[in-house]
């Protein structure tokens, strides 16, 4: 199946393009694509460790199973900061959305 990957910010600069279509085995999960990309672009490793994931514009867990035509984006930390961060972890925030 085909999965559309879009790259933003530091990921876009590392891979040198803003999107590509990857051929992924049926039943593949977000984590599998992550491993695939790390093989292809080893320099993604450090930022990938800090990424969260979105499929079709919604935050998902790495165990999420992908389907043909899905749009997958690896989301590096956003430049937030401020007092909000101290009170809530990003995970808690994402669970509420």
């Amino acid at each position: 199946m085909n999965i559309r990957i879009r790259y933003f910010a530091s990921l876009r600069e590392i891979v040198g393009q803003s999107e590509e279509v990857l051929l992924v085995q049926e039943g593949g999960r977000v984590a599998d694509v992550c491993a695939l990309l790390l093989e292809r672009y080893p320099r993604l490793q450090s930022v990938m460790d800090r990424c969260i994931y979105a499929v079709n514009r919604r935050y998902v867990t790495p165990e999420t199973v992908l389907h043909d035509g899905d749009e997958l984006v690896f989301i590096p930390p956003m430049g937030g900061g401020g007092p909000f961060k101290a009170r809530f972890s990003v995970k808690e925030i994402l669970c509420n959305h």
Partner: protein
Amino acid sequence: MQPLVQLTREPLDRDALVAAVSHPSVGGIVVFEGVVRDNARGKQVRYLEYDVYQEMAELQIRSIIAEARQHWGVEHVAVAHRFGRMEVGEASVIIAVSSPHRAEAFEACRYIIDTLKTTVPIWKKEVAIDGEEWVEG
């Protein structure tokens, strides 16, 4: 009223956002404006570059606004975020919230900017005199 959400490369129009939340029934309008600073963590910043996952950012901002409206009962909200290159002193984000009484408008505005900063896929690159980096929280 449908909240106004704008993601644009163009300079932000504060007056238009304030007009969008103005209504005879409101008693207060709170505006937060984030502007580009000339320094960060001891570095001299030349300019900022913002990147955005536009389709998802818009959905996320709308969901944050919906939460704020539900929680504080604010009726009118407008959020604009600029992307691309921005010079020192220019506005990168403006949030306007109006409500019958000021307390709700202040709290909702604070909630929207804090949540936006940590959950909306928008990234900032600081280009300083001696190098550049994508800022992570």
